[in-house]
């Protein structure tokens, strides 16, 4: 475990924690972007260059932008009464999450695993070959899924006929 790993982990965890705890939704989305950049750095650190850049391209370039758009589109009307959030729900949620975290970490630490040392690299060419041979079917399915999701999202979010724009 190197210093760079610790720094990257800190970025990821702090970003993620910020993403779920800020009260301002825009700040949450931006923190999510920070966490995603951290994750991309982690992937680079682990040698998965392609995944790292894809992570940035997809999450920072697309997902967080979409989230930001959604936040702006669903801003409650000014002067609307804020939703009263019961504190015990929040505490229960955090407690449960903490419990799961404890169990998971315990499980990880309790499992003997040997780490493969030494460099492992995967080139873009390898990935391309794999995608076109072994993983051709999943690739097609993912393509189909993305198309379907695109159309579904457009149909869902498009204002219905005659409806006033929100």
């Amino acid at each position, binding site marked *: 475990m190197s210093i760079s790993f610790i720094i990257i982990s800190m970025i990821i*965890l702090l970003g993620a924690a910020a993403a779920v705890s800020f009260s301002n939704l825009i700040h949450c989305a931006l923190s999510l972007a920070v966490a995603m950049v951290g994750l991309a750095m982690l992937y680079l650190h682990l040698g998965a260059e392609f995944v790292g850049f894809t992570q940035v391209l997809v999450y920072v370039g697309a997902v967080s932008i979409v*989230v930001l758009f959604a936040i702006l589109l669903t801003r*409650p009307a000014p002067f*609307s009464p804020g939703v009263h959030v019961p504190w015990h729900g929040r505490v229960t*949620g955090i407690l449960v999450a903490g419990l799961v975290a404890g169990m*998971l970490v315990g499980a990880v630490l309790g499992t003997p695993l040997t780490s493969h040392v030494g460099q492992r690299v995967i080139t873009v060419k390898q990935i391309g070959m794999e995608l076109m041979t072994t993983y051709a079917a999943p690739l097609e399915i993912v393509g189909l899924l*993305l198309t379907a999701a695109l159309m579904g999202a457009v149909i869902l979010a498009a204002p219905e006929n005659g*409806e006033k724009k929100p």
Partner: protein
Amino acid sequence: MIQPLHACLILSSLLFCIGLAGVLARHNTILMLIGVELMLNAANVNFIAFWRYGAWAGQSAGVMFAIFSIAVAAAEIAVGLALVILIFRHVRTTSIDRVDGMKG
């Protein structure tokens, strides 16, 4: 000294639980989706970690899974946010508490 694989797994566990906490404790649907994204990414970290440190040399399954997982996550967030917008149009709020039509 902790093993690098263990470190990665712990990181992903913590990330997963932060996401889970977000989903459980926050009442905004968009924030819940953000939490779900974090949980998905925790899974991705595991894929990459096992690819990098696992004992199965010469296999690219981890990376491939991560790539597919990213694609699926993108689809998921698009549809999820479209649903959020749709719900917002109906109930004029993004709070999950108002969306309880499945009450028993």
